[in-house]
């Protein structure tokens, strides 16, 4: 789960990492009020996950509350790279003397965290990595970073004197946050040294491990704020993994297991179909949840067919079949359905499905199931509807 900047800064505050004065605002009015409290001059920053907001005009300097209101009004409600901006952060303007880069993130190749530091913050991290000696990288042996190691890292990055020790303190604190909040990334870019010699995290990026959220009360409150779109929310309620693909797609995909879902999606595309979504039921799906998952997929406008590809390993074929037939019995969907299911309780499942007008693949491949579905849709198109 990606936190918004204002949420990440709230966490920073709890960990003693200095942040600018600022408050999130949901409207122009609120922005004006908050700017007033800051003494008029402020920075209005769109709260979005996607990067590059500065260049897109979504971070604006203002000189008084009226300008703050104007800027907020213009920014809130915009859509930036697929995200609707619903908040701005109204923050004090910092006088910047220097900008550093600090982060701790998971190095998946080692299964351990890696710390990155640079004395040239404020630029795109990928640009930084390309410059020779631009970035110091240090792999950690575990989930901790002692103060002296932080000093070593930042000394290698070229920092000295009080800035060295101050930044080292910030670095140990972000690693502690990383460990205690179970983050996958904590990034400060830039860590600003102000004209007054104070270190402040001007921006904050935190990504938390979704699987750990439930055991962190703070994380849980923060998660409620990140609703996502309608389909995503309904998918979460059903308890399935859902990714919306091509809006114009016509083939719905329901599979048990992410690998099988991806392979089914690949097979649809390889045979000239357009997948509209990817839905992974996961293991142990119940009859009701199977029905809800099918209904969710059918709710996509333009779905002409659904391929359902589920093994009865940790799932049960009959339970899956019952969920499917419940939907067909009550909703009479127009879309073609092909079911490929095999495993525990397969015979009972096949008997049940045989009573319905849908394609069934018993001992065949995913490619066959997809081919069957695409053919029946084509036949439908030619004959103008179900016979």
């Amino acid at each position: 789960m990606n936190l918004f900047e204002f949420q990440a800064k709230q966490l920073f505050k709890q960990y003693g990492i200095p942040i600018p004065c600022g408050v999130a605002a949901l409207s122009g009015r609120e922005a004006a009020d908050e700017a007033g409290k800051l003494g008029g001059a402020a920075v209005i920053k769109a709260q979005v996950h996607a990067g590059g907001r500065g260049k897109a005009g979504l971070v604006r300097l203002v000189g008084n509350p009226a300008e703050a209101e104007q800027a907020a009004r213009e920014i809130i409600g915009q859509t930036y790279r697929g995200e609707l901006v619903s908040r701005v952060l109204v923050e004090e303007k910092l006088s910047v003397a220097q900008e550093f880069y600090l982060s701790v993130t998971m190095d998946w190749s080692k299964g351990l965290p890696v710390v990155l530091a640079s004395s040239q913050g404020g630029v795109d991290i990928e640009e930084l990595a390309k410059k020779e000696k631009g970035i110091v990288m240090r792999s950690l042996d575990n989930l901790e970073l002692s103060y002296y190691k932080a000093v070593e890292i930042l000394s290698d990055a070229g920092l000295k004197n009080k800035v060295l020790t101050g930044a080292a303190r910030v670095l140990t604190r972000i690693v502690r946050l990383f460990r205690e909040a179970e983050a996958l990334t904590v990034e400060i870019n830039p860590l600003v040294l102000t004209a007054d010699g104070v270190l402040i995290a001007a921006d904050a990026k935190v990504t938390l491990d979704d699987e750990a959220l439930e055991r962190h009360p703070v994380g849980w409150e923060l998660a409620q704020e990140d609703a996502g779109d309608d389909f995503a929310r309904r998918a979460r309620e059903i308890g399935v993994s859902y990714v919306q693909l091509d809006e114009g797609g016509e083939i719905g995909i329901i599979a048990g297991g992410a690998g099988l879902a991806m392979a089914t999606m690949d097979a649809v595309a390889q045979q000239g179909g357009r997948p509209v979504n990817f839905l992974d039921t996961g293991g142990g799906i119940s009859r009701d949840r199977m029905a809800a998952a099918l209904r969710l997929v059918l709710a996509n406008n333009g779905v002409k067919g659904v391929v359902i590809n589920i093994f009865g390993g940790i799932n049960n074929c009959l339970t899956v079949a019952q969920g499917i037939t419940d939907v067909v019995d009550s909703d009479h969907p127009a879309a073609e359905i092909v079911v490929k299911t095999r495993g525990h309780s397969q015979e009972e499942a096949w008997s049940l499905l045989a009573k319905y007008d849908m394609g069934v693949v018993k001992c065949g491949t995913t490619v066959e199931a997809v081919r069957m579905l695409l053919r029946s849709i084509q036949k439908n198109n030619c004959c103008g509807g179900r016979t």
Partner: protein
Amino acid sequence: MAILIDSGTRILIQGITGSQGSYHAGLMLECGSRVVAGVTPGRGGETVHGIPVYDTVRDAVREQGAEASMILVPPFAVLDAAAEAIENGLRLVVIITEHVPIHDAVKIKQLADSRNCMVIGPNTIGIISPRLSKIGIMPEFLYKPGSVGLVSRSGTLSHEVASNLMDKGVGLSTCVGIGGDPVRGADFVDVLRLFAGDPQTEAVIMIGEIGGIAEEKAAEYLKEGYPKPVYAFIAGRTAPPGRRMGHAGAIVEGSQGTVESKEKLLRDAGVRVLPRLDELVDVVAQLVKSKNSV
């Protein structure tokens, strides 16, 4: 011969008294696995399908000589269960549970590495050496015994490949699910190494997917030379970048972890990569049958 497990492997199940635990314990017994004990703290003295339940792994090892464990406990309980198994000297721990927090997986992996214990998973179907033993949840009637080694990040793609091969009369020496999580115990390399030395295994199939660098590491290892033909399929070529596709580990970030980059490195290492699963099955079936008819 198979790898990792055979008919003599003494298995304990942590979480045996739960609904998943007891259900799969029964299925494992049915296919001949030697499940000698279950462990659920506080339920020592009970039995599940005739299997004695203990309060601790320590007791299960002492009383029944358990050497391998299958963990089927809820996500937040996995770290403790794995630590208990590893620290009590088990040589193999199979973690079926999905949604294990990543920091916990990091700790489990470190602990296993320090104690010479092989951890399989988390988020895996487990291991099966057909007709010999199963530490896992796969429907064993979809897995025929034979000479092909199968190692996969996706459990259900394992079922797909195994069942499709079976339909063509081809079987597996051992199937190992390394799981769908980004931080895992055994990796492709660890299993490939074992298959290399297994006389029963004639050829190996790798099933990968987008995200991470497990396939890239395998390619590096295979480039040094490998004694058996290796075939691979990588799922997710049509997945949109930046979106997590189900598995915690399946996400393409920047240029890392794409199907294209994985396939290229594997091909350069001598692996026969097939873009379609049905092609993979056909090619391997042909190879095995031609060897058998010689």
